[in-house]
């Protein structure tokens, strides 16, 4: 038998041949191109179309960007430098960047908003990243008052006396809690109110006369540019989340009256455009308040933006609450936890985790919506871009300003959305 084999098979290989390289079309860049760009006639058409779009936009914008001018005093000077060629005149940013960022904030005080922004990140760090030492949260708690003082200035005793109200509340709560738990809550609410209404004013004026400390006062109408967007955005974001959670809980509550009030509030706010609320703040608030009261336009806008975002936040959180299995509520009851403890320890951590994408989207939406304040006369970046265009030096300049403002917003919003992705990954507990 073996003879036959040796006769029929002329040659039997007894060593392995070295591995051959794959065919040229199945390896490297060509394979990648074939699989990812030209895997069928439809994909090929799509690829060619995309390439055409990219080529067309590069051809339209490329030369304009390449020839950009950074040093010029006016648009006409820019055009002289360009000498007939197409080119971007980013000199307007070079000339007016401080206005786009700070508005009409006094230029010798720019260090204050910058410091406030840097400290904002320090204050946010322990909230955003749990790995940092918890002691830093004390600074986060003080930051609102510090930030206010840095931005607006004035006597240092005003924010301190406001802060002392919260301290008074905490002290009252701790002292009375030994006597009665319920009374402690009342004390924690009443003590600060009492302090702010009756004692804070005299304390402020007394301390100011004894020890006049403070920074130069800056009026609200000097605020502008990106500074105003950040002030409104950050305050609105930090206030709307707790308010939104309360509204969501109110909407889920068994108490008929509380529930209906929350539903009406949420549906009303969500049913009207933000711009009508802003106009209400600027035009109508004077009707609703006692004659003669007038308070800061920025503050009014912050209140309206906060209410607006809180209603959206409430719906997002409600979605998270609805997504929780009923067993979680029952388990909390079975453990004997009361309502607030159950919410704090069992329900909210899970519900908020589910609703992170929605919450962050609301934050980003709120931050973008701060541009609407231009309609009620506040000088946000867009308002200032109009003002810059109205000046004789920079009449008729559009794209450079839009690109600068758009880039600033993009950096912030994109950053927030990336952080939310990081948070989602970190909090993911299911093992898939």
């Amino acid at each position, binding site marked *: 038998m073996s003879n036959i084999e040796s006769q029929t098979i002329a040659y039997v290989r007894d060593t392995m041949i070295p591995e051959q390289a794959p065919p040229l079309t199945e390896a490297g860049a060509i394979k990648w191109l074939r*699989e*990812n*760009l030209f*895997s069928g006639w439809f*994909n090929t058409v*799509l*690829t060619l179309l*995309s*390439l055409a*779009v*990219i080529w067309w936009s590069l051809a339209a914008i490329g030369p304009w960007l390449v020839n950009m001018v950074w040093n010029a005093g006016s648009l006409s000077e820019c055009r002289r430098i360009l000498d007939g060629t197409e080119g971007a005149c980013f000199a307007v940013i070079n000339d007016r960047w401080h206005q786009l960022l700070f508005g009409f904030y006094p230029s010798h005080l720019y260090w204050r908003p910058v410091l406030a922004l840097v400290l904002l990140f320090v204050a946010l760090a322990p909230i955003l990243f749990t790995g940092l030492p918890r002691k830093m949260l004390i600074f986060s708690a003080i930051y609102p008052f510090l930030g206010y003082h840095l931005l607006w200035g004035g006597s240092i005793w005003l924010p301190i006396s406001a802060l002392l109200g919260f301290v008074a509340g905490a002290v009252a709560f701790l002292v009375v809690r030994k006597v009665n738990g*319920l009374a402690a809550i009342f004390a924690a609410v009443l003590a600060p109110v009492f302090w702010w209404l009756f004692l804070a004013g005299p304390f402020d004026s007394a301390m100011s006369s004894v020890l006049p400390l403070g920074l130069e006062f800056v009026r609200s109408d000097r605020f502008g540019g990106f500074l105003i967007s950040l002030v409104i955005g950050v305050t609105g974001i930090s206030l709307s989340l707790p308010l939104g959670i309360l509204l969501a809980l109110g909407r889920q509550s*068994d*108490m*008929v*009256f*509380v529930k209906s*009030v929350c539903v009406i509030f949420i*549906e*009303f706010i*969500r*049913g*009207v*455009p*933000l*711009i*009508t609320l802003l*106009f*209400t703040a600027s*035009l*109508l608030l*004077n*009707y*609703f*308040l*006692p*004659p003669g009261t007038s308070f800061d336009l920025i503050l009014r806008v912050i209140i309206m933006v906060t209410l607006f975002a809180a209603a959206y936040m409430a719906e997002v959180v409600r979605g998270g609450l609805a997504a929780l299995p009923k067993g979680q509520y029952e388990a909390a009851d079975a453990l004997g936890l009361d309502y607030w403890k159950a919410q704090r320890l069992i329900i909210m951590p899970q519900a908020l985790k589910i609703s992170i994408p929605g919450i962050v989207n609301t934050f*980003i939406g709120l931050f*973008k*919506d701060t*541009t*609407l304040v*231009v*309609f009620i006369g506040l000088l946000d970046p*867009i308002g200032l871009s109009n003002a810059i265009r109205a000046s004789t030096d920079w009449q*008729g300049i*559009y*794209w450079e300003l*839009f690109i600068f*403002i*758009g880039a600033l*917003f*993009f950096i912030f*919003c*994109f950053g927030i*959305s990336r952080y939310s992705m990081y948070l989602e990954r970190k909090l993911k507990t299911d093992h898939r």
Partner: protein
Amino acid sequence: MSTTTDQRYTKVEPKKSFHLSMLLYDQRYRSITIQVFFLFLLMLGAAWLIDNTVNNLRALGRDFSFAFLNAPAGYDINQRPIEYNSQMTHGRAALVGFLNTMILAVLACVLATVLGVIAGVLRLSNNWIVGRLMTVYVEVFRNIPTLLWILIFGAIMTEAMPAPSAFRGDTPSASMIFNDSVAITNRGVFIPSIIFERDLGYLQIGPVAPSISWLLVIVIIAAGIWANKKLIAHATRVQNATGVRPKTWWKSLLILFGPIILFFVLLGAHLEYPELRGFNFAGGTHLRNSLIAMWLGLGIYTGAFIAEIVRAGILAINKGQTEAAYALGLQPGKTMRLVVLPQALRVIIPPLISNYLNITKNTSLGLAVGYMDLRSTLGGITINQTGRELEGMMLMMLIYLAISLTISGVLNVYNSRVKLKER
């Protein structure tokens, strides 16, 4: 002896007496206490606000009335879907603004949906470059405010487009597109309009007078769709009974397009092209820059959000569903139509409609480019001219609220219809 044991085992009746402290410590009463307290605070607050308003109005010597709606408006509106001139009332101006708002909202919703579906599907494609391109589109548009986009498109229209005079002369520097039918100028876009030679006149219904011809067009199209639905239902019945599906495509085409084409021929419909006359184009339909800027701005911006919704909806469908459909022998097209899409739509539609709601509310940004919507007419010029901020703002908010509640009512009906029926 026995009496004492009896006494020992007698049930102790719970105390029936009511203590004041039970209002706080008894769960049965606590919620009522809290609500009464809450109600009291709320009524106090409301009373305070109303009292302030009444006092302020009295101090200003004003009354609270909507009579200004019947006064002549005295201002012009450049985009008039219904007949309007400055002699007409503020109420009429508000109606024109409302119609402009709705026109813009519908146009932007259509554009956003088309763009969003295309971008959302393409972002999932295996094609590397297309996927990246769509990601860039979504991220760039989502992270920059709408208002900025509207202004950018407004600036593109007014600054980057040729003036009508550029179309003039023997060697014009600009030319009309689509076979000389559409002119894109810095004064707006001019497109051909459909003119009926034998027009049927106008129908007077209350304050508006819609064209009878166009109403009939809508009726004929609706009737065609309804009849086509009946036809398909009939075909399904035949298929269920006999196993053979009758060919319906040519009947569908005939039902959908036959009557409308016949109607157009009967009324002598033809296109009126825009022409350069004097300093500007005339004839055809003039889409103003404000409308174009708002339309593109809102549509492309919201399209990026819809793209994400569509993508999430498709990703939400388990791959097993597709595989099961293949195992049943369904072809890819039918798998998409019969298995994947119905389930994906359940995820997609609710956020989609809330995006439509956002578009409708964002039309109020029309002020930025001078689009005469409800906010610019009733909430803008009318308020400035009459000084009736309180009434005007309230009316405007109510109208927006009514639109929003209508849309979310539709959404609720849809949700309850497609809800997973769990047994």
